[in-house]
C-alpha cells in the first residue's frame, strides 16, 4: 500500500517526466554522452582517453569531477555586461529547453500525460524547441565581448539554416500519419513500421539538423574553440557556464526524444498492458529515453569521424543538401500517406 502510494507519487507526470527524466535524466545522459564522446574518440584515434581516475569505470569519475569543478568555481560577472540578461538568459534557456517534454507523451495512457490533451503536441513541442537558440544569441549580445558577438552571429546564421530543416524533417512524421498528435504518430507506426525505416531521408535530415542546431561536434561552429574562444559563452564561468553547456545537452536530449517518438516508434516493441504506474508509464517512458540516449550517443560518436565544418561549408550543406533532403523526405511522407502504407 505504501509502496503503491510512493509509486503513484513518483509517476505523477510533472515529477517523473519533467524533473526526473527531463532534468536529472538529461544530466545523466549528458554525462554519459560526454564520457562516451571522449572514450569513443580516443578508441578511434588509437588513444585511451580518461582512465586513471577510475580504471574500472573507464574514467567515468573524471566527468563527475569536471561537473563538481564547474559548480564550485567562482562566477565572474564582468562590469561591462548587461547583468540582467547575462544572468537570466542561460537560466531561461535551460528551462525552455526542458519545456518541450511537457508536450511529449511518453505513454499512450492519457492518465500519465503532463497536459490534458495531446492534440497538436508535435507542433507545440517543435515550436518550443526553436526558442532557446534565440536566448543564446541574446546572451552573446549581452556579454558585450567581440568573441561572444561573433559567436552569437554565427549561431544566428546556423539557426536560420537548420531550424527550418529540423522543423520540416520532423513534421514529415505528421505528413505521413496525417496527425499532429504524437500519440497517434507513435501508434500508427506501432508494430514495426518505423518512419526511420520507411522514410530514411527525413530521418537523416532531422538527424543532421539536430546535430547542427544543438551545435554538436561536427558542426560546433558557434563555440568553436580555436576560432572564437568559446563563442557566445566566452564571458561565462562556473555554474552559469555549466548551465549553458547543460542547456545544449538538454536540447539535444529533448530533440532525441522527439526523434525517437516520431521516427523510431516511441515505446514500440512494448504496448502497455495495464494502467499501473510501472507498466503504464515508467516502462514505456524508459524505453523512449533509452532510444533517445542511443541517438545522443550516435551523435557523440561522430566527433571521432569528422572534423569541424567551416561556417560557409555548413551553410552550404544546409541550403544545398539538407533542405532539399528535408523537402524530399516530406514529399516521401506524403506519398506514404497517399499510398496508405502507414
Amino acid at each position: 500500500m505504501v509502496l503503491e502510494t510512493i509509486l503513484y507519487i513518483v509517476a505523477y507526470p510533472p515529477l517523473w517526466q519533467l524533473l526526473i527524466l527531463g532534468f536529472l535524466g538529461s544530466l545523466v545522459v549528458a554525462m554519459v554522452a560526454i564520457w562516451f564522446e571522449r572514450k569513443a574518440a580516443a578508441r578511434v584515434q588509437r588513444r585511451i582517453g580518461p582512465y586513471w581516475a577510475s580504471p574500472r569505470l573507464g574514467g567515468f569519475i573524471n566527468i563527475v569531477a569536471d561537473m563538481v569543478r564547474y559548480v564550485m568555481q567562482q562566477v565572474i560577472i564582468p562590469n561591462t555586461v548587461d547583468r540582467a540578461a547575462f544572468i537570466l538568459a542561460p537560466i531561461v534557456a535551460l528551462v525552455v529547453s526542458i519545456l518541450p517534454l511537457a508536450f511529449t507523451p511518453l505513454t499512450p495512457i492519457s492518465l500519465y500525460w503532463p497536459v490534458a490533451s495531446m492534440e497538436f503536441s508535435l507542433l507545440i513541442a517543435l515550436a518550443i524547441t526553436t526558442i532557446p537558440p534565440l536566448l543564446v544569441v541574446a546572451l552573446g549580445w549581452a556579454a558585450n565581448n567581440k568573441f561572444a558577438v561573433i559567436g552569437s552571429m554565427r549561431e544566428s546564421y546556423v539557426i536560420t539554416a537548420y531550424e527550418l530543416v529540423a522543423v520540416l524533417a520532423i513534421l514529415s512524421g505528421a505528413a505521413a500519419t496525417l496527425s499532429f498528435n504524437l500519440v497517434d504518430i507513435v501508434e500508427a507506426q506501432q508494430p514495426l513500421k518505423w518512419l526511420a525505416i520507411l522514410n530514411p531521408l527525413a530521418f537523416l535530415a532531422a538527424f543532421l539538423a539536430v546535430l547542427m542546431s544543438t551545435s554538436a561536434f561536427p558542426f560546433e561552429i558557434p563555440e568553436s574553440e580555436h576560432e572564437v574562444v568559446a563563442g557566445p559563452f566566452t564571458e561565462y564561468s562556473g555554474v552559469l557556464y555549466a548551465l549553458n553547456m547543460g542547456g545544449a545537452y538538454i536540447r539535444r536530449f529533448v530533440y532525441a526524444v522527439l526523434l525517437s517518438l516520431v521516427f523510431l516508434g516511441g515505446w514500440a516493441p512494448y504496448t502497455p498492458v495495464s494502467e499501473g504506474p510501472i507498466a503504464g508509464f515508467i516502462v514505456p517512458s524508459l524505453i523512449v529515453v533509452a532510444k533517445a540516449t542511443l541517438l545522443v550517443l550516435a551523435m557523440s560518436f561522430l566527433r571521432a569521424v569528422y572534423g569541424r565544418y567551416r561556417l560557409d561549408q555548413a551553410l552550404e550543406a544546409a541550403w544545398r543538401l539538407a533542405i532539399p533532403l528535408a523537402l524530399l523526405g516530406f514529399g516521401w511522407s506524403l506519398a506514404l500517406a497517399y499510398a496508405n502504407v502507414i
Partner: protein
Amino acid sequence: MPARVALKSVRRRGGLFEGIASNIQALAVAVKYFVDPQRATLLYPREYIEHRPGYRGFIVFIKEKCISCAACARICPSAAMKMVRVTEPDPKHPDRPRQKQYPVINYQRCIFCGYCVDICPTEALYHVPFQDVVYESLADMFLTLEAFQVEPKRPAVAEGSPVVYEVDEERGLVKRRR
C-alpha cells in the same frame, strides 16, 4: 610591380554519390577501430618501452679502461662532457700519486648523440638503453666522477611491464607486450 594574384578555378571533386560513399567509408573505418581498438598510447608507469640494444640512452663510464685521451670531450657537440683532473695513487709508483684526467658529463646539456661512445678508443663509455631517469634538482644532473660510473636505475621497471613498438604492414606502429 606586385605579383598578380591568379584565381584558380578548383574543380569540385566527385559527385553526390562519391560524397556519400566516402562518408560511409569514413564511418566504417571509425566503427572498425571502435570495435577493435589498436592503442598506441603508453600507460607510462605501468608500461615502459623496451628499447633494442644500440639505443642511445644514458652514458656510463668505466674508469679502468680510460686512457685520458679527452677525445670524448673534444667531439661533444654540445659541450656536455668535460675532463676533470684527479689526483690518484699510481699503480706503477706506489710512493708518489699521479694526476690524471677523466670525463664527467652534464646531463643538462647532453643531447644523447652518442659521439663520445663512438669515438672512445678503449670503449670506456657505453649506453644504457633508456632515457627515463629523473633527477631531483638541476645540480644533480651535473654528474660527479663517482656518479658517472654507476649505471642509473630505471624507475618504471619497478612497477611496469615492458612493451615493444613494432611496425605492422597494415596497422602502422603497433604496441606489443612482451
